[in-house]
């Protein structure tokens, strides 16, 4: 009996390892006859994000914490608040004639609407940025993915993610500087002042504000809260930024700062240990990050030397191809496998204000597939994702 040739069929998992590109391509472009929709190797539709879950307050000795899980990518974020007395800021007395400017600011705040104040607080940006009141740090811990070796210095990826988080915290002005200030009202009003100050923040009561101006004594910033925002990627399966940013956002929403006041006699900041007196941060908006990868059908593009069509020609080809064969797919929330196969990446951070989508950050790099129309679609997908993440964060 003739020996049968050894079978050349491979289980899907091995095929995926040997021919990753062909494997994903076969999933995304099923034969026309099969009438199947285009689907990714992980079973998601191209614009579908992974299942996301969030949990807050799981770390007990932080001021706020969150665990966010996007598929198999898990980020843990803890926010720790520390007091930075203004006496310790070397340049404080020189650069900030604090009391006067703050009074001016308060006048402004009282006369204008809340919205206005939000827009133009001149000290806000400079205080948070100049004094480094927000200190995010991201670490990709050993073992989160096979490539991470113990004892290695922070990888370029970790450093660049830290910077992205810091940048986004600043550019979205998510945290109000006012929340981080510890005020001191000289004795004529006594201990009430701080309370009043807080009340003013919340309700914007007019007569209290005017009363304050009359008293002649100036409230003084005595200290700042510094927020150390540490993110740890416990498990990395692609797209670390979305998970890290969602974790930061959830942790900041969870953060409670104890009531702090200036003790004149001892010249120290005293914090109240009553939970009821602690207050939450009032964040500006809810920016949500969505990342995308672009998968190109032609795996050999780098090998085979073909003419790259001009942008104009490309547009025509693209239109023509819309009916026929698709050449590239924009994959939302790529996992580790897909990230390895896509050179071009995009990341969009959107927020919604009064139902209107506001883009707060949009970047794309590494290729030329995403332009005009395609980017617009990406923004629309991100806007839909915003709703999703919002409900997840509100539930936790």
């Amino acid at each position, binding site marked *: 009996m003739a020996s049968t040739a050894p079978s050349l069929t491979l289980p899907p998992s091995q095929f995926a390892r040997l021919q990753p590109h062909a494997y994903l391509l076969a999933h995304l472009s099923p034969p026309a006859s099969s009438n199947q929709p285009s689907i990714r190797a992980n079973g998601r539709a191209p614009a579908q994000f992974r299942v996301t879950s969030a949990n807050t307050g799981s770390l007990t000795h932080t001021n706020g914490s969150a665990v966010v899980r996007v598929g198999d990518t898990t980020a843990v974020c803890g926010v720790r608040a520390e007091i930075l007395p203004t006496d310790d800021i070397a340049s404080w007395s020189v650069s900030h004639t604090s009391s006067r400017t703050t009074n001016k600011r308060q006048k402004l705040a009282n006369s204008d609407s809340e919205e206005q104040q939000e827009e133009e607080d001149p000290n806000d940006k400079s205080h948070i940025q100049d004094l480094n009141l927000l200190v995010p740090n991201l670490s990709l811990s050993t073992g989160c993915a096979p490539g991470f070796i113990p004892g290695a210095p922070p990888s370029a990826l970790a450093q660049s993610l830290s910077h992205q988080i810091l940048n986004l915290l600043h550019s979205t002005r998510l945290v109000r500087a006012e929340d981080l200030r510890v005020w001191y009202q000289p004795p004529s009003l006594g201990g009430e002042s701080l309370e009043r100050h807080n009340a003013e923040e919340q309700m914007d009561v007019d007569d209290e504000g005017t009363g304050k101006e009359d008293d002649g004594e100036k409230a003084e910033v005595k200290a700042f809260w510094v927020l150390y925002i540490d993110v740890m990627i416990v498990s990395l399966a692609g797209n670390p930024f979305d998970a890290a940013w969602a974790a930061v956002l959830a942790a900041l929403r969870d953060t409670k700062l104890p009531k702090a006041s200036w003790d004149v006699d001892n010249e120290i900041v005293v914090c109240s240990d009553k939970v009821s007196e602690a207050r939450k941060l009032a964040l500006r908006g809810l920016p949500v990050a969505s990342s995308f990868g672009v998968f190109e059908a*032609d795996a050999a593009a780098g090998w*085979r*030397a*073909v*003419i790259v*069509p001009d942008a104009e020609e490309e547009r025509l*080809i693209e239109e023509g*191809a819309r009916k026929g*064969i698709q*050449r590239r797919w924009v994959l939302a929330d790529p996992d580790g496998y897909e990230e390895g196969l896509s050179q071009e990446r995009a990341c969009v951070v959107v927020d919604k204000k009064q139902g209107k989508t506001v883009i707060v950050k949009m970047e794309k790099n590494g290729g030329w597939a995403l332009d005009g129309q395609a980017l617009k679609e990406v923004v629309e997908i991100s806007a839909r994702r915003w709703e999703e993440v919002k409900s997840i964060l509100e539930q936790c």
Partner: protein
Amino acid sequence: MSSPLVLLPGDEIPSEYLPSTNSAPLRLGPGLRLLSQPPSSSAPSHVLTATQAGILSTDNKKNAVSILSAPNRRYIPTVNDLVIAQVHHSSPDYFHCMVTPQAPHVVLGQLAFEGATKKTRPMLKQGDLVYARVLSVGLGAGAEVELTCVNPATGKAEPGGLGHLTGGMVFDISNGMAARLMRASSSSADQQDGVAGLVVLDELGKKLEKVGGFEIAVGRNGKVWVDCSNGGDAAVKATVAIGRCLTTVDQHDLSPADQKKLVSRILREMKIEV
């Protein structure tokens, strides 16, 4: 030829610039590549595009086209280049030599000299100079470059002059200049303007006949060795003068007329009788 065509990466080469006289297939030199239309589009055609910035250079005789890119780059050994290497240390089988200061040492076989046997091999010391040909460049990381001073097929030093360089002096010049000097010296220099815009060697040769002429070896690695051993008293002066002429021409990109002036000026300054 009108003003030369300067191309940037991605630029297509206009077909009128391509040599069309010959029916032989077109030969592509460095800096060019042939691209084909992606399969999806209708027009089946090929275009040539540049991958480096430089001047388009065509050779009608060989039906070749290439890009002349930035000439003064670091020297990267290529097979058959003639180089001037300096012995760094020796091991039982090889001399380990330095071709460029920033690259790892290259090896030169102890027996890779004309007429060398186990007993008659040259005893080169550290710092000695050799004029050698690149025999092979390895592939991949840690690959060794091997030099030879002999043609393995014939056992002769081909072209003549390969081997130990005794006496003389080495001057550093740019790689672009080294290439020009090689072209100038390899072709019969009967032309009025010299080859590759260089008349400095011809001029020096004429003027230094009285001191007994000189020897010169040009390495593609940006080194030139000069010797005037016949010159007697003026030998050292003449050697230095030649070196100065070459390096000045290199640094200031002198035109042929200026080169002639420079040669006269330097020889006068150094009080060499002509």
